[in-house]
């Protein structure tokens, strides 16, 4: 039986954000925007959804008098990502070969 894909992660932009965050310790909002080519507004909305799900931590701070948003994947986010990849693999390779 196929595992259900996590609806929070099964979305293009949110999956892109989580994939970037799993590769680094933490990243600025501008880094995520640059790599995903998303608009600031759309990215903001999706980041909030990930944050509400407990998959990422978002810290707002000031650096050189400029506001800075730092995003970091949580342990729960890592688990969800791993489960999502496992589920994808079960879809791609249903016989488990």
């Amino acid at each position, binding site marked *: 039986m196929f595992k259900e894909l996590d609806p929070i992660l099964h*979305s*293009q932009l949110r*999956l892109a954000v989580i994939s970037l965050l799993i590769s680094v310790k933490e990243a600025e909002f501008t880094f995520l925007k640059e*790599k995903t080519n998303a608009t600031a507004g759309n990215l903001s909305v999706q980041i909030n959804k990930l944050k509400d799900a407990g998959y990422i931590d978002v810290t707002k701070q000031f650096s050189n008098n400029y506001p800075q948003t730092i995003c970091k994947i949580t342990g729960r986010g890592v688990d969800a990502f791993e489960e999502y990849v496992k589920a994808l693999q079960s*879809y791609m390779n249903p016989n488990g070969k």
Partner: protein
Amino acid sequence: MNEAENKMTEAESLKLINEMIGKAKRSYITTGAASIVWGILIIFCSLLTWYQFYTNHFFDFDVWLLVFLAVIPQIYFSIKEKQKKKFVSHDERTMTYLWTTFGICIFVLSFYNSKFGSNEHSSTSLFMLMYGIPTFITGGVFKFKPMIFGGLICWVLSIASMYTDIAVDMLFMAACGLFAWLIPGIILWRRYKKQQTC
């Protein structure tokens, strides 16, 4: 990237994951400036020491003290790079500890030499042995072949220096600076500049 909610196929999802992980990995580029400065300084001090042995004319000060001056530009470049960087990689903490350990070990070994007046011939071998450690590990962690080769060259020259006189050892030290730091640093710098123009 548009928010095409839940319309991805499984293959598209996996492709997106790979693409983003690849993009993040390709962002791990440093300017290489610290490596260039360190390399130039080691080459300069080694050649100057070699010149002293070659001409038998010795300066009144220890040229190797200049190495400790390299700490200042190293700190400056790392602060500058940190300010520019928009992310922190998983390996950064490890690298900071590794290179700090290297710096402390070089300092302690230099102090040991000055205090106990150890045989300079054997200490050059030890210095080159130590140069290879952080270089090889950094190269391996970041899959950066020039530094892996640089580290290996340091170790080969460390062994070779056990059979040569101190003047030749200094030429080996200069070669270590060239292969372990200057050349990899220039490669990193060119990559960084190329990325900036893209």
